[in-house]
């Protein structure tokens, strides 16, 4: 993970994608494809800038912005368009550097402005980042569970005995889990609150139904066992899916409602539909 590995790759002969790499010269010329890989060693543009500062052998506060900008841009220009995705953050930094450079080249304004000195700001960010980088190393040096010490794993008592009360699982649980994996912005999945009907589960379940069946009415998507709260959560789930453009509304047909099995739960559902026309919301999978 250290930039020196460019040099340490020196004595190897290897092939990165289509480009044979017999040796990497010290002046850091790297073939374009290999460059993308080389860049991946850095945790980002700030890390890369730190490397350049260090390479120029200067104190961070004395950072010579002009040569460093030149060097930075020279490296980044090596990136071919295929790797723009990787380059996004690097390009953003490039534009910051160019802005700073431009500012430095322009004559100083006669009246001092309120704006902060962008160079000072950049140095501050570099310092803050360098601090985090050092401390992340220190964190990594701590004795860590599952790297330096290990939990003891044991099996539960015999399956037969424990299984006596085991429920059977539906295979749809598997599919729903895959949907969740793909659909959930997972950092929300872990919010701690007790939902009678978890939204994430409804989203996954409705996605599965719609993606396999194409079109369904809102009513058909409900899990009748979940009661009123289930209707509300399902509605929010549908809105979320519409927002993500996974699901579209086909029609609000009038009076289809009565076609739907009008047994036990309809009262509850009916009570929620806002007006007497009892129009049906029909949804379609768009993905």
């Amino acid at each position, binding site marked *: 993970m250290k930039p020196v590995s460019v040099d340490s790759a020196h004595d190897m002969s290897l092939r990165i994608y289509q480009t044979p790499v017999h040796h990497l010269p010290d002046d850091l010329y790297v073939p374009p494809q290999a460059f993308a890989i080389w860049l991946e060693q850095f945790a980002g543009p700030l890390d890369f800038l730190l490397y350049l500062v260090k390479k120029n052998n200067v104190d961070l506060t004395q950072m010579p912005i002009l040569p460093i900008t030149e060097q930075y841009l020279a490296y980044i220009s090596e990136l071919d368009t295929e790797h723009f995705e990787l380059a996004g953050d690097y390009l953003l930094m490039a534009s910051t550097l160019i802005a700073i450079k431009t500012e430095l080249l322009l004559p100083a304004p006669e009246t001092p402005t309120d704006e902060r000195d962008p160079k000072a700001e950049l140095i501050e960010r570099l310092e803050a980042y360098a601090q985090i980088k050092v401390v992340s190393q220190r964190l990594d040096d701590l004795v860590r569970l*599952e790297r330096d010490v*290990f*939990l*003891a*794993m*044991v*099996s*539960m*008592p*015999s*399956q037969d*005995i*424990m299984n006596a*009360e*085991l*429920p*059977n*699982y*539906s*295979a*749809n*649980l*598997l*599919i729903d*889990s*895959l*949907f*969740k*994996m*793909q*659909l959930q912005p997972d950092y929300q*999945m872990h919010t701690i609150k007790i939902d009678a009907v978890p939204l994430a589960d409804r989203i996954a379940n409705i*996605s*599965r139904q719609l*993606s*396999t069946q194409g079109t369904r009415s809102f009513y058909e998507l409900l899990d009748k066992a979940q009661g009123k709260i289930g209707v509300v959560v399902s509605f929010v789930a549908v809105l979320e899916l519409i927002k*993500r*453009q*996974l699901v579209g509304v086909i029609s609000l047909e009038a009076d289809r409602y009565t076609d739907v099995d009008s047994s036990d739960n309809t009262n509850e559902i009916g009570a929620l539909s806002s007006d007497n026309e009892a129009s049906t919301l029909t949804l379609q999978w768009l*993905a």
Partner: protein
Amino acid sequence: MTDTYNSKQRHEKQASPSAALLSLTDGQLQHLENISKHIEVLLHASEAPLTAQALKKHLSLSTKELQQALTLLQQRLDAGVLHLHETASGYRLQIADDYSRLIQRIFPQRQERLSQALLETLSVIAYKQPVTRGDIEQVRGVTLSSNILRQLFDKGWIIEKGYKDTLGRPALLHTTPQFLDAFGLSHLDELPPLPNMDAIRALP
């Protein structure tokens, strides 16, 4: 608490040469004691059950050493709550059956609830089998915790069979007939059709 404990008896019968241990010198016994501790460590650390073969290979043991050390291990475990369980796929350490009620009482959800991480891992194995650990990590985008694999092995839902012919020859994971049973399937073909994940993933 223990009398009906058949696999223990089975082990003791097979290992009845515990008398044979009596004829060993202190030095030899100490050596075996160390081996038995190493075996205990590996059984605690392994995701999948370990075969006699694997134990012998990892610790460079003869068959006799292994048997003697396993006998010692079982003797030591008898003082606690674990026992050495031999399954078709190898040895593992297991909480004695007598404690199943205690566990059920205190962690009732432990049996029923399958965590999202466990389900995702299982789904990837079920749909893409055979897969390596690395494949699963690739699909899920996170490192796989040993604990999850261990749980899947414990439930008997997955097994290791064969190796992928790449660097490190990682073991290949498959689902088992017990997995099909637990999910009410009679054949892998009956798994619900996989939605088009690429389409979903590609969406903004």
